[in-house]
């Protein structure tokens, strides 16, 4: 370890919380845009980010009346950044909504299974999912399902070994970057063993690496 390494380490550890949160939010957004499955809701991170965005918007509103050109330019900078954050948050939420809309039953089941301290969905997302599905079920029932025989009315039938519940393609290929050494990764059903070292970029099945993406050892790119 030379002096540059030591300096770099100090720089990382003293990096402001805000910057690290931006790194985490960006990573979460990219993962949500690319991964086939929905990721656990980053509750604490979103709370911090949303609170900061709210405060910053208040600040902008307070100072908008000010006509001094210097303050004016400062406001342009602040506002540009707020817009960038708003884009990140919005795109992140919309990417999640898309997954919730595509595979509602699958995600509902996963959410129910997930740990209560780290739920898969945020309270608002859960509410959206359940009320949207209740509306849809009522609509299907009223328009055609009620005319079917009773045994054919279910929307989550699993008889005959085939589940009606759609789920995402968990084996889809994704690109990942290794953030911490994870060692050997096996791909089920094949002979592949991958030795993943920090800094590597791999094309790999989502199902083989999702655990490490969740724990922050790998990132989707």
């Amino acid at each position: 370890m030379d002096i540059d390494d030591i300096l770099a380490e100090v720089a990382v550890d003293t990096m402001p919380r805000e910057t690290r949160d931006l790194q985490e939010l960006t990573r979460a957004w990219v993962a949500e845009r690319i991964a086939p499955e929905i990721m656990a809701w980053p509750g604490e991170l979103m709370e911090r980010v949303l609170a900061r965005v709210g405060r910053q918007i208040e600040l902008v509103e307070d100072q908008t009346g000010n006509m001094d050109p210097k303050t004016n330019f400062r406001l342009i900078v602040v506002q540009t950044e707020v817009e960038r954050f708003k884009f990140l948050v919005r795109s992140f939420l919309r990417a999640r909504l898309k997954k919730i809309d595509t595979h509602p039953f699958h995600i509902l089941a996963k959410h129910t299974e997930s740990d209560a301290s780290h739920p898969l969905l945020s309270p608002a997302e859960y509410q959206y999912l359940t009320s949207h599905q209740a509306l849809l079920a009522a609509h299907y029932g009223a328009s055609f399902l009620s005319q079917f025989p009773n045994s054919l009315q279910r929307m989550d039938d699993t008889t005959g070994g085939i589940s009606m519940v759609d789920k995402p393609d968990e084996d889809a290929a994704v690109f990942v970057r290794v953030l911490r050494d994870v060692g050997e990764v096996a791909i089920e059903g094949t002979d592949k063993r991958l030795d993943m070292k920090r800094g590597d970029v791999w094309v790999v099945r989502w199902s083989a690496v999702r655990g490490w993406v969740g724990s922050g050892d790998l990132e989707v790119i």
Partner: protein
Amino acid sequence: MALPLPPGLTPPEIAFICEMELVTIIPRQRLEGLELLGGPLKPLNPPQRASIPLWLALLLKRQRRANIIPPPWLSPHSLAAILKFETEDSPDAFSPPPRLPPPSSSTVVPLSSPFLPSSTADAAADALPYHWLELGSMLLEAAPDDFDDADEVRKLLRGLREVRMAKLRQGVEVLDAGGGFKMNGVGGMELGEARSFITGVVDGLRKIGKSREEARKERDRENGYSPSQDYEDDEMDMR
């Protein structure tokens, strides 16, 4: 409200991420410190250099409030050396990415591009960072007057891009159903361009070989999942 885009990042989204990269500027006007959402911005005092995110640097540059110092790897000399390496020394693999800082303690979230300072004035001169193509084109477009020889840089970037795209296309031959290819050194925009093709091929091949794979999975489970010993090492490097 749900996002109508398919999985994967669009080019504007990749550029958006690239705009978070830190670059070095020489301010031409004073700007007091600001508490930004992505961390505090130190006061800008000409002619002291400062490292700020690219989006802010571009904003200041457009209003002629600052000059941008192109990163060392974006000089004709470095690019020519990297291009030579890509064509002569390593005709099949990408040139290696910049050296990583030492691993941080495990409690801290590890940093990665665009938050590693790989494009500031004191970044490494001998390696292309993840966002090389996007950053290079954005700087050439917004600040051509800050380069010594912008046309030469433009030409070299173009050359690099063509050499590397050819490698990506050649690399397609090693794709198979299992996935698992190393692609160290690939760039953000290159990945965005090749993503749907590469994942499409891997996913398509997987679906074709699905029944064979299912049979194997079952056999593995019956045997208590012991990987066979005689597997060939067909892990192909696309580096």
